[in-house]
């Protein structure tokens, strides 16, 4: 009973939050509602017994990703409302719905056909965190390491991209501008 109540409350709130995210003109609203939606989704994870994933959702999505977005938004004028030309079309909504249903069909297909084999069932008598640790560091060790490397590379890329001189492009500059810059550099050296 409580689970049903919680589920319905959470779902309705999540849908509302995400709807605000995609429909609002104010980026700050979008940010806040998206963050709230993420936390609500972590609630689903807790309900489904995936405690560890729930906490990871909170820490990574809300703590890190949304904070990064917010950090990035400070570069833009946040409180200004954004103007977007709206040619509203049913095609967009239809297309999205069809795509969503198809994706879920592909997910559900094996389940309905009872063709899904449980490869890594949760360990008996272990908490969710322990089971995840066991599977992650045995069967999924290589993907885990790859994910780690990917994160490292992404971090380096982020730092480099947001670095100082990335906004000047030698291909977009004219010859004179490049020459001038070179001259300025030489002057400094002298």
């Amino acid at each position: 009973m409580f689970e049903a109540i919680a589920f319905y409350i959470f779902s309705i709130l999540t849908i509302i939050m995400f709807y605000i995210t995609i429909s609002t003109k104010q980026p700050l609203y979008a940010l806040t509602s998206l963050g709230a939606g993420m936390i609500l989704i972590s609630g689903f994870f807790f309900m489904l017994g995936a405690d560890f994933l729930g906490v990871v959702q909170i820490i990574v999505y809300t703590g890190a990703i949304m904070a990064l977005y917010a950090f990035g938004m400070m570069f833009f004028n946040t409180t200004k409302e954004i103007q977007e030309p709206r040619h509203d079309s049913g095609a967009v909504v239809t297309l999205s719905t069809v795509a969503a249903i198809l994706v879920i069909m592909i997910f559900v297909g094996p389940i309905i056909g009872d063709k899904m084999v449980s490869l890594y069932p949760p360990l008996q008598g272990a908490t969710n965190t322990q089971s995840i640790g066991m599977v992650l560091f045995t069967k999924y060790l290589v993907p885990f390491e790859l994910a780690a490397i990917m994160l490292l590379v992404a971090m380096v890329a982020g730092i480099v991209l947001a670095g100082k001189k990335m906004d000047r492009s030698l291909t977009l500059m004219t010859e004179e501008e490049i020459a001038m810059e070179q001259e300025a550099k030489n002057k400094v050296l002298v």
Partner: protein
Amino acid sequence: MSIGLGHYLILSIILFAIGLVGVMRRKNLLLLFFSTEILLNSVNIGFVAISHFHHDLTGQMFALFIIAVAASEVAVGLGLLIVWYKRQNNINLDQMNSMKG
């Protein structure tokens, strides 16, 4: 009234559709990023629900890796966004057409 896999998957469908609508309708790049996050999250719900109802940790593993991918995506994407903003002073999708044929 018990909540089954179907409930979660329908929720996942709805959120996925919302995300796709956002991806197609949003003109502001930042909000486009937000929409992609919605897509990823909706799929995560599906994964974890299947994992729960079928007693298999693979779904949770996938969700975990999706979160990792999302984190890297933000780091790189936001970096690109900032570079673009510095250069063009806007992040409007309709003005990103220097690659047109």
